[in-house]
């Protein structure tokens, strides 16, 4: 079951990490990913039925994103999970460019956790258009480590896989990290218990021996929906944790304060030399720049999305920065304002002074409900983003989390999500909506589905790390 092939052709990697003629995971450098990757032909997208009356399990959708294909912008395959009730959410690869020293290891298996069920699925993508479930780790095996609510999946350079876990076995705090071995079995808890209380996303920069993790809340707090009472009771996170990556211990905790409520997606720049990164504080609707200031890490708010008045709302509508990513060339930051309905593109050539380059509106509370004339209504806002490795195509889906969708975009349960795409010009810093591309998750055999995270078979801007 392992993707390591000790019997494979030996490759001499002592010489400039040469990947020539080798089918292993990833690319020598971020620039090599841009130059050598082919445009994506399929996308893997999480599809959800949990929390609706559709009596079907969640699935991984295989979306045709090849413009020359007859089934362009269609869901051409659905890998159904064996159980209902998972809430598929985030997922990740067994290997990425950080595994460059693992000769023969391939980026072939997707680790697909159920956020609510705590069940972890392993999907083999050897046949890219017809992936198959290969292994399932049942919730009871996860609970044995006093962990639940698996979220972010990153491979680590030795062939193992690390998953952020947001709760203990009761869905309460503290969370932690679960390690899987290269055979996709639980290896154990990664860090000594007690390092953190809340957890959410994480990213590591191995060259600097650093990992940064963020905070959502206890699963019991965020699972049922967003309740202001929990914000007032300090049940939501506002901290970043700076880890010693090798030791698995927290070296520093940064309190982002009221401007940094619910820091979610955490992205270092891709250059292995960089000690700069960004995190989106969803509730405060701010983007923070974090960086190594010499003796410690610091985090400063660098983008503030102003709440906007809306005739139908009693209070100004926050943007809700729910996802953000950095282009492979580290020149642009993209983020979504899920409640407003826009995607923004910032020039980050000066990392501490992002400059708004372009902005695109589609759905949400302020964007057009029919961003593509003649196409179906979009009932959510831009949410999970994914960018092509060459930085020229930005895709997104519209669902955040089933119970939160029900509060803010209740029609999404009935009408389903969409996946949209913008063409990006990374030379001129512009985006334009591709009016020939709309994937309708509302029109599926079992019923309308939600759509969440997106990945490409050959790596993407939110999973690849370099040593």
């Amino acid at each position, binding site marked *: 079951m392992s993707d390591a092939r000790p019997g494979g052709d030996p490759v001499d990697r002592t010489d400039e990490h040469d990947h020539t003629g080798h089918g292993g995971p990833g690319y020598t450098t971020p620039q090599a990913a841009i130059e050598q990757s082919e445009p994506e032909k399929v996308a893997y997208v999480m599809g959800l039925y949990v929390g609706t009356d559709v009596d079907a399990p969640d699935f991984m959708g295989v979306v045709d994103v090849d413009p020359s294909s007859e089934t362009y912008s269609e869901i051409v395959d659905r890998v159904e999970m064996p159980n209902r009730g998972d809430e598929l959410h985030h997922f990740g690869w067994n290997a990425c460019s950080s595994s460059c020293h693992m000769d023969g290891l391939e980026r072939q298996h997707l680790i697909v956790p159920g956020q609510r069920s705590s069940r972890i699925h392993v999907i083999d993508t050897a046949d890219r258009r017809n992936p198959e479930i290969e292994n399932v780790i049942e919730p009871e095996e996860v609970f044995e480590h006093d962990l639940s609510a698996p979220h972010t999946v990153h491979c680590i350079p030795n062939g193992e896989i690390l998953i952020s876990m947001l709760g203990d076995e009761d*869905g309460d705090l503290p969370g932690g990290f679960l390690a899987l071995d290269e055979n996709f079995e639980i290896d154990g808890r990664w860090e000594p218990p007690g390092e953190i209380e809340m957890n959410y996303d994480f990213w590591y920069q191995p060259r600097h021996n650093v990992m940064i993790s963020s905070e959502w809340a206890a699963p019991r707090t965020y699972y049922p929906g967003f309740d202001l009472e929990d914000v007032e009771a300090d049940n939501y996170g506002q901290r970043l944790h700076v880890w010693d990556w090798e030791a698995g211990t927290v070296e520093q905790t940064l309190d982002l304060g009221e401007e940094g409520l619910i820091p979610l997606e955490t992205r270092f720049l891709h250059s292995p030399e960089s000690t700069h990164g960004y995190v989106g504080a969803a509730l405060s609707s701010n983007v923070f720049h974090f960086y190594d200031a010499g003796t410690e890490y610091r985090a400063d708010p660098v983008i503030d999305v102003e709440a906007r008045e809306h005739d139908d709302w009693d209070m100004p509508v926050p943007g809700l920065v729910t996802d953000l990513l950095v282009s492979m060339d580290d020149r642009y930051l993209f983020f979504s304002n899920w409640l407003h309905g826009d995607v923004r593109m910032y020039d980050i050539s000066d990392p501490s002074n992002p400059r708004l380059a372009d902005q695109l509106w589609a759905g949400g509370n302020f964007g057009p409900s029919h961003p593509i004339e003649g196409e179906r209504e979009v009932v959510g806002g831009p949410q999970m983003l994914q960018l092509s490795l060459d930085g020229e195509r930005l895709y997104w889906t519209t669902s955040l989390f089933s119970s939160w969708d*029900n509060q803010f975009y209740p029609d999404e349960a009935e009408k389903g999500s969409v996946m949209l795409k913008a063409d990006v010009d990374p030379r001129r810093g512009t985006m334009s909506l591709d009016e020939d591309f709309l994937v309708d998750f509302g029109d599926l055999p079992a019923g309308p589905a939600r759509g969440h995270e997106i990945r490409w078979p050959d790596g993407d801007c939110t999973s690849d790390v370099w040593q």
Partner: protein
Amino acid sequence: MPGDDPESAIESYSVELRFRDGPTERIEAPAGETILDAAEEEGISLPFGCLTGACGTCTARLLEGDLDHKRPPRALKERHREAGYVLPCIALARSPCVLDVGAEVQSDLVSNPWK
């Protein structure tokens, strides 16, 4: 339902499941089995997620009768419990019950706080 088999001598209760905007179903729930499991056994699908009482996906409202949660219903705040909300994934019937069920019930727990 008493019988010769000691297993079948375990007490069970009639539970009425009233789906919002849907049919009403009646199941027999053994006292030691969760309402979710008892419904599944009779081929009736209720929504669910964590199965540990943390997530609230299965939230239902108890309209009549008594039930116990076999572990703390962490997804429910005190105001929810006082209003009769229960979690069928960890709920054991203690008398004949009538429940308001279906995926929509969960969305009663919280609304858009700014609208």
